[in-house]
């Protein structure tokens, strides 16, 4: 089945498009995280993923890291928020099982905007004097070409293979509604393709409704869509369902040791 030119497929078919070694951009926990697709990635045994958190992540990154799917984690932070440290992330970094590319939120946004604009780099204020500049061999100090002596950092473009996220709905033509979550629009523009799970597919044309069109991502950027009701669970979708706080607290407790983490995976179908 396909709406317009964008295929609508099963969550496992969608996850299978993420090849081993792919760089995938994902949103923060509060914003339309494709958790059902994340479990599908773990089920299919994805390997060597380069996860780019835009700009931070939580349980999604922790699950993928714990399940051995991740080789590179690029992020401004990984945390379970009020529930504390992300246990699998923390353990993997300390034991060097993954390569951590510590970044800072605006650097990730700027790197994606560079790709969005087809630019090889983007300048950014701040950063100079932080140890991030020391450890990021790919960030460079440069000079403002319009003012001698004004030092400024330049960052290389970040070009993910896929942007992977969830949305309240797609329309019959494959357009995706995202409302205020415009970092997902930028992510999709910057990536080679977007893989999107949706609560539902509505038989409407988003582009015919000016109110909806302004908060949408055109099908043009979407590689494939999978219908996934409650697809952000145990995280929430603003205005539709709350995060499952009990479940998340249980995860935070269980995932602190390897056995508990494996139990969790087995129990929750990943």
């Amino acid at each position, binding site marked *: 089945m396909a709406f317009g030119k964008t295929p609508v497929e099963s969550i496992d078919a969608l996850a299978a498009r993420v090849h081993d070694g792919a760089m995938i951009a994902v949103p923060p926990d509060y914003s339309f995280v494709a958790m059902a697709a994340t479990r599908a990635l773990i089920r299919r045994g994805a390997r060597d993923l380069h996860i780019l958190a835009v700009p931070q992540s939580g349980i999604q990154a922790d699950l993928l890291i714990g399940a051995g799917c991740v080789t590179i984690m690029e992020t401004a*932070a990984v945390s379970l*928020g*009020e529930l504390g440290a992300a246990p699998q992330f923390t353990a993997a970094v300390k034991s060097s099982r993954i390569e951590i590319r510590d970044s800072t*939120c605006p650097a990730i946004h700027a790197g994606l905007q560079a790709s969005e604009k087809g630019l090889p780099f983007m300048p950014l204020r701040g950063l100079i*004097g*932080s140890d991030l500049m020391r450890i990021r061999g790919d960030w460079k100090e440069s000079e403002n070409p319009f003012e001698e002596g004004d030092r400024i950092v330049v960052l290389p473009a970040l070009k993910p293979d896929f942007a992977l996220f969830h949305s309240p709905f797609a329309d019959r033509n494959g357009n995706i509604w995202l409302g205020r979550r415009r970092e997902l629009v930028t992510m999709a523009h910057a990536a080679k393709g977007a893989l999107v799970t949706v609560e539902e597919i509505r038989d409407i044309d988003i582009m015919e409704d000016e109110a909806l069109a302004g908060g949408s991502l055109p099908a043009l950027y979407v590689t494939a869509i999978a219908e996934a009701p409650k697809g952000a669970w145990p995280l929430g979708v603003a205005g539709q369902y709350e995060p499952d706080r009990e479940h998340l607290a249980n995860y935070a407790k269980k995932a602190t040791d390897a056995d508990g983490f494996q139990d969790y995976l087995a129990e929750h179908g990943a």
Partner: protein
Amino acid sequence: MNAPKYTKTELLIEVIARMLDGLNHVAVGASSPIPGAAALLARARSGGTPRVSVLSSLRHNDFTDGARELFDCAAQGRIDAFFLGGGQIDGEANVNLVGLGDYPKLNVRFAGSYGSAYLYFLVPRVILFRPEHSRRVMVSKVDFISAPGTSPPGLYRPGGPYALVTERCIFSFNKEACRFCLQSIHEGETVESIRKNTGFDFDCPPQTLQTPPPSATALELIRGDVGINIAEVYPKFAREFLSLS
């Protein structure tokens, strides 16, 4: 008339709120329940000034252009105050949000630098907030500089540290001397208890001020509207640390 009783959390909310009075726009980042409550308190008692943008809140968030807007807005000079924490904070106001030990093989790993390496440079009034005030946190030199407290002359830096608020005291920061100065101590503390628990050297005024307690109005708001609103984003915090009326 006895002063009303208050908790340490309530005191810290009030202390930070006082630093925000009169500002136009305060933004609050991730994992910041007390600064978030302080910003809402400042707004509540001034009839809507300052604007408050709480990230990850839908209700108290003026941004509509995605997650980058906070950072762009700060660079435009439209954010007057922001908050940073730190697993370690040192006497030169450097903050470490990455971990303890030699990077990348750390003994303790924190969440990460978030927007610190940028916002610390661009927001005029960055308030460092870390309740735990011990030699473990307040160190002589951080293991990793997520964001430096000061920058050499000539580097573009309209922003920087304004104060450091802890469970024990308030420090102001002297940019020229690149040192903290004790501004006031909370009830139950002495200059000696502060020195004993601080790993860096700091300046002291001739007379030590006591941090004034929260006003009855402040407490009423914290236990009412402010608490209810902060619970949207930090339900666990609101449940455990605020006694909502």
